[in-house]
């Protein structure tokens, strides 16, 4: 057994190399099939079906009945592969589908998400990952429970984990549902969004139920490969097709400059609330478009002023600190063979994440210039509206309400401010916009699905493991047999997944709003209890409990108080009106700042007025701080 598993680890590069080659071959075959007349719909279906089948197959092959395998993938995931799995775990439907679109419309201010979703890994690598790995815990609450002792501390950590992960997973299932819906619908057999959600959920569960962390790890590596290929091919292809440069990332300088000139030529106009209402385009109280967007900010311009700088930095800080507190990411570093490899694996994670994040602004650039530059055959801005409406991809997206043209000045010519598009469409439609073959659109759909599924997998597993290990095994029935524990874990996967799918079918928020909240919840409750657990010996149990609860309550209270400038979620917020907080600019996306501050103050104050922890705890912390030796939990 030990020998075959060692052989398996050695064979990994070969296995995934073959897999990547096979996938590329599949893309080429699909391209040939398209030339021979296979319809676009069938190509999309083939891509989605083929990849889902592979993930499910990996999930089935990796089934296990061993606790260490189920919770920690046997602690033998090699550094680089764990980096890929973490990257897939990390990059959600929001990163893949929404991010380039956000940059496309939001420009500089939106790019705070790029910094926020990468910089956090520096915190993970220096402050947490190696120490949590040394601890040898199964889940993040397991660390809190062992470091601070007592069921209450453990339970608080489980509570925060559930709130943050559930907020996040709902958005992932929403994304899975809408992509599955698009791919599976045929004119003869249209499927509903709910059907898409449930189909997505079933495939997500196929990847995680039988083998827990082990299945999820190996399918996430496969999903990373699909999503990065799907993201990079269109960018390189478009860049080559229109001679923007062989290597777009370092060679799009001219295009970015050209966009600034074109923006000046066409003019960036911001519509008032009345104009938006008259055109029946949803907008918030300030007249900012909420679903269908138009370009108002310069592509590469950085607005001056303290307000912009503070908004940017505060958002980046929330996302970075949130990154270092999200349990589904931290638990990936429990699966490496050694402490050193856990630390190295963080670097590889960020490298693989960077491949996509460094490309997102470039995708936004090539997509925008394809629409705006009159020298390109694909341009639509400045053309006759009747001609634009006749273009195939415009017709398709208008039909589903994702694209809209409003001729405000009635001149029959499409102005920059008359072109409205849903953010998510930018990534999904760019291949069509630039006139690439349909096979690339199918590939992009498969990539988006892989991104949303891999994140949902990690999140549902984090939640189910926390309940099955920390609540059921550690608190309710410490004598439970391995078989019972794994049955409970699997039942929980199904229950939690179903709850998330039901929530998703209500369609409460856009993908991004809910995602940002998950970071704020995690940072409010978990960041300081986790970090101080390693870095401050004086931190006590009561202090940690105070930190978790006060942080969570303060963050949530602030969120409810500040409200959201979007009517869609009054269901959740009650009748709280949105507050125009122009004095500090800490809005609903940034409620982690007050939350984490309260958490820090509460934790430090209460720790200092309670008795220091026992010598046994001090020794445990000393042991955690060095890489060598047995894991703390196993040694104890």
């Amino acid at each position, binding site marked *: 057994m030990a020998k075959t598993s060692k052989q398996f680890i050695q064979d990994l590069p070969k296995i995934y190399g073959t897999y990547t080659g096979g996938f590329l071959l599949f893309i080429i075959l699909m391209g040939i099939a398209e030339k021979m007349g296979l319809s676009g719909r069938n190509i999309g279906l083939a891509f989605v079906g083929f990849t889902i089948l592979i993930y499910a197959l990996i999930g089935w092959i990796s089934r296990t009945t061993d606790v260490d395998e189920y919770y920690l993938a046997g602690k033998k995931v090699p550094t680089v592969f764990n980096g890929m799995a973490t990257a897939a775990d990390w990059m959600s439907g929001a990163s893949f589908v929404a991010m380039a679109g956000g940059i496309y419309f939001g420009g500089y201010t939106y790019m705070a998400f790029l910094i926020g979703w990468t910089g956090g890994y520096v915190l993970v690598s220096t402050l947490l990952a190696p120490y949590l790995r040394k601890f040898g815990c199964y889940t993040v609450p397991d660390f809190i429970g062992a470091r601070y002792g007592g069921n209450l501390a453990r339970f608080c950590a489980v509570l925060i984990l559930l709130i943050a992960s559930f907020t996040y997973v709902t958005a992932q299932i929403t994304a899975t549902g809408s992509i599955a819906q698009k791919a599976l619908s045929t004119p003869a057999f249209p499927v509903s969004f709910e059907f898409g959600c449930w189909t997505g959920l079933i495939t997500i569960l196929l990847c995680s139920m039988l083998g827990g962390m082990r299945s999820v790890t190996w399918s996430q590596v496969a999903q990373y490969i699909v999503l990065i290929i799907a993201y990079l091919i269109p960018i390189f292809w478009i860049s080559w097709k229109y001679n923007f440069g062989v290597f777009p990332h370092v060679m*799009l300088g001219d295009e970015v400059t050209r966009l600034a000139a074109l923006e000046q030529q066409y003019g960036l106009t911001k519509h008032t609330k009345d104009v938006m209402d008259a055109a029946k385009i949803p907008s918030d109280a300030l007249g900012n478009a909420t679903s269908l967007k138009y370009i108002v900010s310069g592509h*590469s311009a950085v607005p001056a002023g303290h307000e912009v700088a503070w908004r940017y930095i505060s958002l980046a800080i929330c996302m970075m600190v949130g990154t270092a507190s999200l349990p589904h990411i931290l638990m990936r570093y429990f699966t490496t063979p050694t402490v*050193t490899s856990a630390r190295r694996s963080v670097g590889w994670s960020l490298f693989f994440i960077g491949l996509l994040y*460094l490309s997102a602004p470039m995708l936004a650039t090539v997509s925008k210039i394809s629409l705006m530059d009159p020298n390109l055959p694909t341009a639509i801005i400045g053309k006759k509206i009747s001609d634009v409406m006749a273009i195939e991809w415009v017709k398709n997206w208008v039909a589903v309400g994702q694209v809209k043209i409003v001729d405000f000045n009635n001149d029959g010519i499409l102005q920059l401010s008359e072109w409205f598009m849903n953010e998510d469409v930018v990534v999904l439609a760019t291949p069509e916009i630039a006139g690439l073959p349909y096979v690339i659109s199918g590939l992009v759909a498969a990539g988006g699905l892989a991104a949303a599924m891999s994140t949902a997998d990690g999140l549902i597993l984090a939640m189910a493991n926390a309940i099955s290990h920390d609540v059921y095994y550690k608190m309710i029935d410490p004598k439970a047999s391995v078989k019972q524990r794994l049955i409970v874990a699997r039942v929980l996967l199904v229950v939690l997944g179903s709850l998330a799918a039901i929530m998703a079918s209500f369609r409460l928020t856009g993908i991004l709003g809910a995602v940002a909240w998950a970071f704020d919840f995690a940072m409010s409750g978990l960041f300081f209890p986790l970090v101080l657990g390693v870095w401050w010996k004086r931190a006590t149990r009561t202090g940690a409990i105070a930190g978790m609860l006060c942080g969570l309550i303060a963050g949530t209270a602030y969120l409810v108080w500040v409200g959201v400038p979007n009517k869609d979620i009054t269901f959740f917020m009650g009748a709280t009106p949105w507050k125009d907080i122009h004095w500090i600019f800490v809005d609903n996306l940034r409620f982690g700042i007050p939350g984490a501050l309260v958490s820090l103050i509460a934790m430090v104050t209460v720790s200092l007025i309670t008795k220091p922890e026992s010598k046994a705890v001090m020794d445990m912390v000393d042991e955690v701080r060095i890489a060598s030796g047995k894991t703390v939990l196993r040694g104890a």
Partner: protein
Amino acid sequence: MATPKQEAHWQKTKGLMFITLAIWFFFSTVVFMFAADLNTASFLGYKLGYYMTAQGSMLAFIILIFWSNNRQEKIDREFGFSDEDREED
């Protein structure tokens, strides 16, 4: 209680942590306090403020993590606390 060797190892580790976080703070926060001013300069044909948010800081984070990890591994080896030769526990 921590042995003097563990104490010394932790002092060095803490020192590295503060340096790493200072560099991190520079690229994640300080740069973007002055992004509007940086945007008048140019790099690789991109405006510098735009470049830092689109690529520059992210590249800095990646390099920073690998650099800091190497330093930490050196510290671990120096005090004999390295676990690199360990296969599994």
